[in-house]
């Protein structure tokens, strides 16, 4: 698989992860060593095969559409890095 540095940087931005030049280098090398080659993917494109997203899922289980008890607010907020009595606190949204 061949990607440009710009594509790696764009993907990292989409993932909200910053990558150092060294990490970028390592990732490019790992991608280059990826065992499925371009011609293999091209061959698959020509095959009329449906996609599989999940293993054997017999039926989708849906919870009944009824109001139920939620987690208490204190439990919801217990792992928050920053919170007041009722809200998650975050930095301002705009620069």
């Amino acid at each position, binding site marked *: *698989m061949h*990607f440009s540095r710009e*594509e*790696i940087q*764009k*993907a*990292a931005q*989409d*993932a*909200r*992860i*910053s*990558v150092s030049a060294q*990490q970028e280098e*390592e*990732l490019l090398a*790992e*991608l280059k*060593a*990826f*065992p*499925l080659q371009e011609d*293999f*993917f091209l061959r*698959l*494109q020509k*095959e009329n*095969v*449906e*996609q*599989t*997203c*999940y*293993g*054997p*899922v*017999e039926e*989708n*289980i*849906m*919870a009944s559409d009824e109001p139920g008890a939620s*987690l208490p607010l204190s*439990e*919801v907020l*217990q*792992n*928050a*890095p*920053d919170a007041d009595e009722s809200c*998650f606190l*975050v*930095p*301002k*949204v*705009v*620069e």
Partner: protein
Amino acid sequence: MFLYPVIEEEVFAIYAHLSARELAVEVKKNEGFREKMAAALLQKCSSAQKEYDLFSSWYGEKIAQKYKEVISEKASSDKKLLGVPYVLDDTICSLAFPAACGSPMLQNYRPPFEAYAVSLLSRAGAFLCGKARVAEFGLGCLEESPLGAVTANPRGKGHIAGSGAAAAVASGAVSFALGVDTTGELREAASYCGIFALKPSYGAISRRGLIGFSPSLEQAGILASRSSDLALVFQEIAVRDPQDATSRETFSFSPQGDQAKIRKIAVPKDWSSVPSLHEEVKKVFADKLEQLTAMGFELDYISLPHFFYAPAAGSLLAAVEAFSSLANYDGVRFGCREEGRHLQEMYTKTRSRGFGKRSSNFIIFGALVSSGKYYDKYFVQAQKLRTLIKRELLACLLEYDCLLTPTVPFTAPLLGRKASDHGGLNFVEASYTMAANLAGLPALSYPVLSEGSLPLGLQFIGRDKGEADLIEIASFLKKENF
């Protein structure tokens, strides 16, 4: 070098020679045994922790007291796993312990609910000793977690165990463990440590309460030293969960002791052409095939043209799912947070510091191959490849009772090696295991132990809902000293 058998005398604690079923009976009928059991548990878990560094969190010195308290509350009832000690992968939620998932991102995270399987085990009387170390978010098992610790192998000092849970079972500290198998991690760790592993059919055990990264591949599974313990635990937890959309109807499961129904076994004819296959594994596997033939099993070498593309297809699909599943670790609702001048900067700083290098690379890989430009070119084709692999396996299992391969192409790697030494995004350790995850089929790793060598595993992939057949053949082979 310190090779198998290396388990020291202290391992053979009071409960080491008892199966889970026998242990539960003793605990119920004998109060004196409960006292001894609590003391033995403290001694065993402490020495295993000191020796192998397998727990990420546990009761420590309070474990004996805790054991007595929990068991005395339940002793009057008829519970199949009463007092049977076990551990959980740190990626499975329990209310009693944090779930750091081997990541700085979730260090000190305390789940507000527990996994359905853990609730069922608690209802069955099993005693949770603690949480066991995993690679970050359970992604593979070759690399130490970014939290710094790596668990040593009780059957090969200087080598990795693959997971804290496998080391806990192999050292005899606990009777069984519950872990997560996404690309084959559970079976691989079992192979390294010389124990049994069962990855059930997809949806057989509820996934509620698993903190994973690839929902279409991951499945909770069981590690144990005995096949009968796999059966007992599976029976208790393979129950439909009304709150898990991927949980399946509870199906009939009744293994008939050690009488194997499996007679016709398929072997991929290209099994020995895996580039990372070590000579030692190749030789042992070839010997085992001869032994099986001599025992009267019908073995056929069949063509599976797509089977060995599974690690690459699985890696690509898991990366895309990880890009999505791990997107909610942003420093707002839980986990670590790095301060930023504004929200976007906080997200990026938090995620850059919170994820280790391998997870970061994996997530970026997922973002790349699912981007608008590459979605059709790579992601869609990998999904089609998944269809071909699944079809191939289902066709094979119509004609044969199971498919047999080595579990991992090599024995436990040395401590300190990085995943990139083994191919990075390619998951070479999953050369034989990934296909079962892609197809959602059950697979069992059977331990092969021989004096003077590191353990390795044989993998039996069975038919959908065919867990009983797999456990039966494992019991049969064990009885025959295979």
